[in-house]
């Protein structure tokens, strides 16, 4: 019996060891590719790699800084992202208000229609937009990129606003109405302030979704080149570690944003315990 005890303990330990191994493998899988991509920025090798290490350099940041085409693509992506936010926020909010004003049966029908762009492959959204506008004589370009991206990004905004609206107390509207406020006033002074956190979050998500979109954009871009298309094209036309420098900067920005958001969340929690 005494000989069995250590064996038992080992058997009890096994799942934990296996899980630790799994976790280590998962984290390596998640971060090693990004780490290698980032590290390759500092290698003098013309093709981005870490093997062999030919020498440490900062020249690729310089190359990125001087890359006019990259700057053009970056500004275009930012412009498109802002345009998408400007479109998707009001329309998504309107869609959410529209939904919450309906009876259950009609609501589930419209809900399915509004959610469908999220369940449609991005390439199909791009193609459908391209074909429709071609009939009207409009060919691919920045305008169609904004429209095609907004088709599904509006659905994200709608979902986020609907989620917030579920916690809205409609008696607030009734009370304001009873006190003589106009409907526009109620919208501006009661509903919009209530929705504000969801709108900020939705605007942020909408911009990110637009900025990182590739599949939909690819079909409607015409000859315009936003950042994701620019990066993907680089792989064919001659990838240099300048692209890695760009990746590194984007990763760093993401990291900083994530940490800042987390810190502000913690501060808020401390101010409002429970």
């Amino acid at each position, binding site marked *: 019996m005494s000989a069995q005890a250590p064996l038992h303990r080992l058997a009890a330990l096994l799942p934990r060891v296996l899980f630790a191994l799994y976790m280590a493998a998962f984290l390596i899988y998640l971060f090693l590719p*990004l780490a290698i991509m980032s590290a390759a920025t500092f290698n003098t090798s013309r093709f981005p790699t870490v093997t062999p290490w030919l020498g440490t350099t900062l020249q690729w940041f310089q190359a990125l800084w001087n890359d006019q085409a990259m700057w053009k693509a970056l500004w275009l992506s930012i412009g498109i992202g802002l345009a998408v936010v400007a479109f998707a926020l009001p329309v998504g909010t309107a*869609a959410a208000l529209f939904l919450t004003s*309906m009876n259950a049966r009609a609501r589930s029908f419209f809900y399915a229609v509004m959610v469908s762009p999220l369940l449609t492959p991005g390439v199909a959204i791009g193609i459908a*937009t391209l*074909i429709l506008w071609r009939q009207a004589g409009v060919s691919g370009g920045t305008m169609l990129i904004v429209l095609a991206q907004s088709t599904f990004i509006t659905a994200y905004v709608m979902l986020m606003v609907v989620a917030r609206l579920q916690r809205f107390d409609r008696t607030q509207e009734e009370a304001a109405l009873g006190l003589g406020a106009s409907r526009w006033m109620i919208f501006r002074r009661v509903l919009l302030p209530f929705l504000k956190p969801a709108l900020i979050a939705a605007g942020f998500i909408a911009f990110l979704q637009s900025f990182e979109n590739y599949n939909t954009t690819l079909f409607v871009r015409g000859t315009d080149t936003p950042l994701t298309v620019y990066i993907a094209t680089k792989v064919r036309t001659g990838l240099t570690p300048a692209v890695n420098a760009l990746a590194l900067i984007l990763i760093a920005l993401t990291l900083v*944003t994530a940490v800042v958001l987390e810190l502000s969340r913690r501060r808020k929690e401390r101010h409002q315990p429970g």
Partner: protein
Amino acid sequence: MAMAELIRRFGPGLGGVILILVALWIVGMVLAPNLMMLNFSLKPNLFPSEIGGPKDQYTLLNYTALFSDPVHRAIFLKTVWGSALVTAITLAVTYPLAFWMAKVASVRGARAMLIALIIPFWINEVLRTLAWYILLAFNGPLNIFLQTLGIIDQPVRWFGDTGVLAGMVYAYILFMLFPIYNSISTLETAQIDAARDLGASTLRIHRRIVIPHAKAGIATGCVFTFMLAAGSYVAPALLGSPGSRWFTEIIYNWFFEGGNWNRGAAYALILLVLCMAVVLAALRLFRVNLADVAK
């Protein structure tokens, strides 16, 4: 009726604006483009001068072409099968982590993990795939590493099916993880403890308690992963080889190299119908409704 309620609630001005915006989106950007694509896919590819002429007749030829062309048919079936494989692998890889984050880790540990996961999620799919492009290159770090360890003596050509699979699982891992994590989080830990006290094995606890509870999250994760994989363009384009072409690449070629938009539209609709079918099948299979999926 909805209109009346909108106008009653927001007044004619604001209510009208809301209706116009919603119509603009639903009719102008969701319904009209898809109907036009459908119409387009049922027409033959004609010269502009022939449009409206005797040859301008509805036909199913663009659809049947997919199944009569053995290469395209094989690529389509491979895309379906490959996307299912990506979905299954992603589910297997993420489930333990989702459970750990929701039920085992401390609040602080789970938060830290969440932030760590967000970083690869926020940088875009093209860069995530590029990272794998660099890692898997013929003279790249992975081959050198495996050679140094003596596991392989010749560099391996990862680009192709293996590369595409690895890149896709990587790109979509979080679309699977987050819904599963969210749904396991709502499970009462007491239920798991009770089952364990009653002598249930870990496997049985997952099979009988955790998985049934998390089925909406699992269905959501699977639906999104499948759809993203089937509609993926970057991973096959960067990590594939001529032998591992993906259905989206065929569609792209019809538009920008083959010059047959009608056939491209038909192929895109087939892809769309495939994804919709998978969504509906998953809803049925897991008995969840759309509102749970789209959370």
